[in-house]
């Protein structure tokens, strides 16, 4: 039986919460503005709790097992982060309170800015962007403002490798730029010859992801950055894959001018079923004036007796505000806690173990699955989910069959430059046992593909629902529950 919707569970006259009657005299309501009906469900608290508990059981989550969704860094979310983020000193502060009453928040944000600058090798950081994609938009608008400020208005192009996330070209287009695709060379690096052929004074910048979405550290990274800098362009780094570089290399040191961090990937803030994320942006010294404001700053240095005083400043040539208030503060508390618990050595261990785990999986799977760009990988790698001898099997079938083994599938059909891509990112929090279980399942599936291909084609069999009809969903378009009976 499918789980009924809240509207189907509704029963007239029920409510899950009651409020006290007004302790002040009532005022006449604005009769011209009153709504005639409010078609919301009517449920008791126990109905609500059971409904959402049952719904939760239909999900797969990190808490249940390995979640090797490439490029998403689905690492374990420490419970202590949840606990501290719920301290009332954090949750009950209003964003417009006097600065004197929120010095704790500002101190935390200030330190987090400093730490992100240190980890990424940047001169300035804004914590405002809500997610990675908004960080990208922020970064490209900074790039645009930088060129415009110098009176350089000929630059109309952004270079983007063909392995990039879709958000890169979309963010560039939203900032008014034309996107030039850069091919990948046979080693999985940016095609340097092609890049050099399009580097001219029309280039505003390049957006690169390093390690790239093949999970490879770009061996041409330094010449790529130099080529773009030589023609006056800026280099944007997509920080989606920063987990591989913590304490290993700082993007700013490599010459990257702007980068967004994904607190929800690298620093273990929960993905929440698709948000909230948090996408702070770091920039080189020449760009700090363009950051969105306001930014937390130490406005008065303290001494032995008086603590420093923190406040907000507006960067001189700011692109403006990208979000209301100061960003996803609740996520900042969690990321702060995570970094504080790791320290410099701990962060490097995170990257080392993430890369170790990915290479271990790659080593164990390369005999069963074709690896199109086969070399030492970073925190993730990409396999082809298909075999010549069983042409009917595609990556989707492998993904769906993995669910029957109790495993969340890898990212599939991305990056676009690999046929039937299966992009696998185990993260550092998986044990060897868990990795071995994944390999066993992948090997069994490769065997089943040859002996019982229908087991894959019809998969999954063990999930709350079987393969869903996406075509019907898009064609018939039902985006709301059946309207409640309005008698």
């Amino acid at each position, binding site marked *: 039986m499918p789980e009924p919707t809240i509207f189907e569970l509704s029963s007239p006259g029920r409510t*899950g919460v009651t409020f006290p009657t007004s302790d002040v005299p009532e005022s006449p309501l604005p009769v011209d503005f009153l*709504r005639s009906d409010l078609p919301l469900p009517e449920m008791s608290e126990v109905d609500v709790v059971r409904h959402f508990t049952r719904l*939760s059981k239909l999900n797969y989550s990190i808490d249940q097992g390995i979640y090797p969704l490439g490029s998403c860094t689905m690492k374990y979310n420490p419970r202590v982060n949840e606990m501290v983020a719920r301290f009332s000193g954090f949750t009950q502060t209003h964003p417009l309170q006097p600065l004197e009453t929120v010095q704790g928040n500002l101190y935390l944000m200030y330190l987090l800015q400093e730490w992100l600058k240190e980890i990424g090798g940047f001169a300035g950081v804004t914590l405002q962007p809500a997610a990675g994609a908004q960080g990208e938009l922020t970064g490209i608008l900074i790039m645009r403002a930088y060129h415009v400020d110098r009176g350089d208005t000929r630059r109309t192009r952004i270079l983007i490798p063909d392995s990039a996330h879709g958000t890169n070209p979309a963010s560039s287009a939203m900032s008014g730029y034309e996107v030039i695709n850069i091919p990948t060379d046979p080693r999985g690096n940016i095609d340097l010859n092609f890049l050099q052929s399009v580097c001219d004074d029309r280039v505003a910048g390049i957006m690169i992801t390093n390690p790239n979405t093949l999970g490879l550290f770009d061996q041409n990274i330094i010449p790529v950055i130099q080529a773009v800098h030589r023609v006056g362009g800026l280099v944007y780094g997509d920080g989606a894959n920063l987990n591989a570089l913590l304490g290993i290399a700082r993007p700013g040191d490599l010459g990257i001018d702007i980068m967004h961090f994904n607190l929800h990937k690298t620093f273990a803030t929960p993905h929440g079923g698709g948000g909230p994320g948090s996408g702070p942006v770091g920039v080189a010294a020449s760009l700090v004036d363009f950051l969105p404001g306001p930014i937390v700053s130490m406005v008065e240095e303290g001494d032995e007796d008086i603590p420093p005083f923190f406040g907000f400043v507006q960067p001189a040539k700011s692109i403006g505000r990208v979000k209301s208030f100061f960003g996803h503060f609740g996520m900042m508390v969690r990321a702060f806690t995570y970094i504080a618990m790791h320290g410099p050595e701990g962060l490097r261990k995170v990257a080392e173990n993430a890369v170790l785990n990915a290479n271990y999986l790659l080593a164990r799977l390369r005999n069963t699955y074709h690896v199109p760009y086969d070399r030492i990988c970073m925190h993730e790698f990409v396999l082809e989910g298909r075999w010549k001898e069983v042409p009917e099997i595609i990556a989707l079938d492998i993904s769906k069959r993995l669910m029957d083994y109790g495993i969340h599938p890898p990212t599939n059909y991305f990056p676009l430059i690999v046929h039937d891509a299966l992009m696998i990112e185990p993260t550092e929090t998986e044990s060897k046992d868990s990795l071995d279980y994944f390999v066993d399942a992948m090997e069994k599936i490769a065997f089943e593909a040859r002996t019982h291909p229908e087991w894959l084609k019809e998969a999954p069999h063990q999930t709350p629902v079987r393969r869903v009809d996406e075509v019907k969903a898009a064609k018939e378009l039902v985006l709301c529950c059946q309207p409640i009976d309005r008698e």
Partner: protein
Amino acid sequence: MFAPHTPSEREEMLKVIGVSSIDDLFRDVPENFRYPQLNLPPALTEMEVVAELNEIAMNNLPASEMPCFLGAGAYRHYIPAAVDALLQRGEFFTAYTPYQPEVSQGTLQAIFEYQTLITALTGMDVANASHYDGATAAAEAVIMAYHNFRGKRTQAVVSPSLHPQYRQVIRTYTQGYSGFSIVGDELAATEPLTGPDTLLAKINENTAIVIVQYPDFFGRIYDYTQIAAAAHAAGALFCVAVNPIALGLLKPPSEFGADIVVGEGQPLGIPLSYGGPYLGILAARKEYVRKLAGRLVGETIDADGKRAYVLTLTAREQHIRREKATSNICTNQGLMALASTIYLSLLGKTGLRQVAELCYHKAHYAAAQISKIPGFQVYSDTPFFHEFIVQCPAPVEEINDFLFEEGILGGYDLSQDYPSLPNAMLVAVTELTGKEDIHALCKALEEFHA
């Protein structure tokens, strides 16, 4: 810290990989940049970090510990215990975007229910799976309108009484659209309190969208029928930014003829949390569904014919359309949308109305009491919901300093955004504001004046 390998397991894994040390895995990283010394404090244990964070939190004064009259886009409301209890289920908060529907039906159905609740509140036909916040949802509405007219209409008419931060974000988002301009909000400098009629003259054949707020930033309730009709007569889209709690009482913006509804969903069961994460509401009439930014969940069936849910119309989105996508947004505010879905399920038809009425009655009581204090005047030309302007005898900053000494967090100083309103305070009242809080405020204001 959270990595489980023992030294012998690491050795075994390195052997399988065929390298002798971890360092061998990083040979592609240019040597002169490898292994920077990070200047960060040494690692803390869980016990130490809890103590440290507790100390940091103690350096704040939570708005819950004193009478608080701050609103201006973020509101204190009572959040039933079941909301957070359910949010803390790992099955919800440690899952990611429901790309694989067979193992994500919980998230998908919850979003589908959220979409339905938002359409019920706003009167729109479709709602997306949520946006970052009210400000970014408003900016996306402008970009949606720009694309709706294929860039041929290059002007947005924005009300000066739309939240100042929403107006700022709209400007940031549209700076890459050359030739696109925003008009109307320049009135914020000269005629900040002007009503919607003043905007009528700004609407013309070049207008892509008209945006107003309901109740507006000053808490006022206007009938937008006429301005909606003017927008439509010029062929433009009409967008209303809403407070969802107010919609528990007030008629939905669909009745004015809204094409798009945006709003800040924070009042629906989401804590203040110093400004985020919040919830962006984005809904529209059905003819615009293919132009809507963000994720959408649709109902379908599985291979056995059983009802199921799936992300749909993904061909609009960046991972498929890349530079031609409707927006660059990737995720939504999944967990925040879930919070509001649980909140609205608990309150339901009667609870939401009750909260809205409590806000309304207490705000009107507060306004009536304050207007009795000599020197203080409540702006009362138009009906209001739970926020109102108090014209004060001195700069608001001064009054707020005095109130703070008396243990009260005063209202928002409007001069920060509206320099021509030097002594105007925006006072917000919700169901959590007690009669004694209102009396304490009035007493302090009387003392200030005396």
